[in-house]
């Protein structure tokens, strides 16, 4: 008999963290050597975190290069959008609420610095905390700066659809993954052998767009969850599809079936299409991608911060500091060390580009390497 606690352990990951299965999977992947280097891209900050947290890159053969693509919605959030949030806090006296990842990303200044300069910015766990703050401060304007991919966009949509207090509005900077993959394929062409698809984005949005894209562009993809077994299983499925494409009927494999249904979450998709309409959007480091963002529909305009406060992105705000090469790092074109600012003005204490902000941002992660040679230098 399965006890409640066993059942929980299974579903919440214990069996998907089994070291024996992880070992067996990594051996199975190694046996599929294609005789050339495979460049595989994931587009998910949480995948990067999991790969690092479990040390999974060390378990993969050297012929797989796992590139961390533009998968962190905070890293791809354009400086001009962040700047609008900053202005709402400083010039319009609004309480700006947002996620913890966002407040340290530099635009002209960061949202943390807004607070230091007398504005009011607050880190919240989700949009509902922003709504609570609006209810507690009826005399103030409260803005939720809504970044994130489909996974997060559906929570913004659900809140607006349900109804929010009069003094609450959202500044949206949501982004959609499929148009970005299409753009990456157009610019990277043959340089990418396959994609690891983000498990929680697909749990919401479903697989239809990806299947269509994979078949049109003949690029294999595999949906991965976030436990070590999930990730390695997806990599194995992907490698098999790259190495012997003829053996698989469908180029997209779903290795995260417990969370990802073919049609995603219909309620969530319906909420998003009710509240938002797609629009062209800019991605930091990549540029404008057609149809890759969400605009608040007319019906919900009263709670759209851009309309309420009459603000627009400042075209003079540049996405990156002169010299910063995060865009190329993000696409795996250069190594962090190739950027002139790396360790030379850009560091975790004072990040210049977005890749240095998050702990597993490519530059921040690389910053931790090379301790031995620095010690030798110091002692010489």
């Amino acid at each position, binding site marked *: 008999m399965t006890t409640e606690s066993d059942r929980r352990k299974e579903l919440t990951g214990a069996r998907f963290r089994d*070291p024996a299965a*992880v070992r067996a999977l990594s051996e199975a992947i190694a046996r599929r050597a294609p005789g050339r280097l495979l460049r595989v891209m994931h587009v*998910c900050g949480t995948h990067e975190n999991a790969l690092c947290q479990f040390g999974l890159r060390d378990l993969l053969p050297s012929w797989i290069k796992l590139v961390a693509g533009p998968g962190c919605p905070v890293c791809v959030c354009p400086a001009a959008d962040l700047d609008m949030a900053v202005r709402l806090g400083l010039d319009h006296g609004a309480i700006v609420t947002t*996620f913890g*990842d966002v407040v340290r990303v530099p635009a002209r200044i960061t949202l943390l610095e807004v607070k230091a300069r007398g504005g009011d910015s607050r880190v919240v766990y989700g949009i509902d*905390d922003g709504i609570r703050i609006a209810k507690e401060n009826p005399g103030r304007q409260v803005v939720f700066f809504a970044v*994130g991919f489909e996974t997060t966009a559906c929570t913004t949509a659900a809140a607006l659809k349900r109804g929010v207090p009069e003094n609450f509005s959202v500044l949206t900077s949501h982004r959609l993954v499929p148009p970005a993959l299409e753009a990456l394929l157009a610019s990277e062409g043959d340089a990418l052998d396959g994609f690891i698809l983000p498990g929680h984005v697909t749990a919401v949005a479903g697989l239809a767009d990806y299947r269509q894209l994979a078949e049109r562009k003949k690029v294999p993809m595999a949906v991965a969850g976030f436990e070590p077994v999930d990730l390695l299983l997806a990599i194995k499925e992907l490698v098999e599809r790259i190495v012997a494409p003829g053996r698989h009927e469908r180029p997209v494999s779903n290795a995260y079936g417990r969370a990802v249904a073919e049609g995603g979450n219909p309620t969530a998709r319906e909420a998003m299409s009710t509240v938002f309409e797609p629009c062209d959007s800019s991605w930091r480091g990549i540029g404008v991608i057609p149809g890759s963002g969400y605009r608040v529909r007319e019906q919900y305009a009263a709670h759209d911060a851009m309309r309420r406060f009459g603000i627009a992105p400042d075209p003079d705000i540049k996405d990156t500091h002169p010299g910063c090469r995060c865009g190329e790092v993000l696409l795996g074109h250069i190594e962090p060390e190739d950027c002139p600012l790396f360790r030379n003005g850009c560091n975790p204490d004072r990040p210049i580009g977005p890749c240095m902000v998050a702990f597993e941002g490519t530059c921040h992660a690389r910053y931790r390497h090379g*301790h*031995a040679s620095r010690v030798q230098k*110091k002692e010489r």
Partner: protein
Amino acid sequence: MDSPQLVTLGHGSGGRLTQRLIREVFVKHLSNPALESLGDAAALAPVPGRLAFSTDGFVVSPLFFPGGDIGRLAINGTVNDLAVAGAQPLYLCASFIIEEGFGLESLERIAASMADAAKLAGVSVVTGDTKVVERGHGDGLFVTSAGIGRLREEAPAGAKAVRPGDTVLVSGPIGDHGAVIGALRSGMELQGLESDCGPVAAMVSALYEAGIRPRFMRDPTRGGLATVLAELAEEASVSVRVREADLPVRDSVRSVCDLLGLDPLYLACEGRVVAVVPREQADKALNVMRGAPRGEGSRVIGEVTEPAVGPVVLETRYGGTRLYDILASEQLPRIC
């Protein structure tokens, strides 16, 4: 119904109300002869040898949390700083910045909790001060504590004494305090998870009494275990290798980390010791720590190595590695 009694600016005036506040809240709970004399300074008995002297300020929100409160933190924070410096903590002082409108009942609860913590740690609070700031100029209550201890002759010489091959121990599960505060601040309810706030002085004494001579000790508060070890690696020009499988982290702490996107190695502990001892003393040190108060969860977690790829190299359960450096800035809940 009586309305709750609140601290007013008058309580900070230095006049009669201040005296009453000190007598009826602080002296009442923290009583000892030195404090009761209420002079401008406490007169203390002579202490042989060298002294250690330490201070720490406390700002925590919420002020009360499972396993402790700001007052208990203030006592244990200074007690533990002295203890890991190799000193026997003796006398403490505490200074309170109170925001106008703060509840007297809460203040009294905090004073009682400090008295209990001081008793448990074997120290006396011999002098103190209170100030009241206008409403809106403080977050309820800030506490600063300072303390004096008798420094043992064998106290650790500092990070530079650490050598490759030395063994690294930790006195119990890591991150409990940081996880509790992070969870509460994000609107979570906790069952069975408490802050580890507590004194480590008795455990450190037990180590010395057993003849163990730690080369390095630290209480991993802000920045957590990883920051303490990375600072050690930096100062001593070594690396520290930690085995994840041997690292004690509670399931509930891991769950808070999963939910908020935090790393347990960077979460604060408020009642743990990280000790580095010569390898030949490791087994004995582990036994002594396990037998000492608050040390039953002690583990050997890794060793000091020659400088390697990162300051701290965590060997994951799966045989991979993950590198840690000093925490750049406070961990915040994230979505990606």
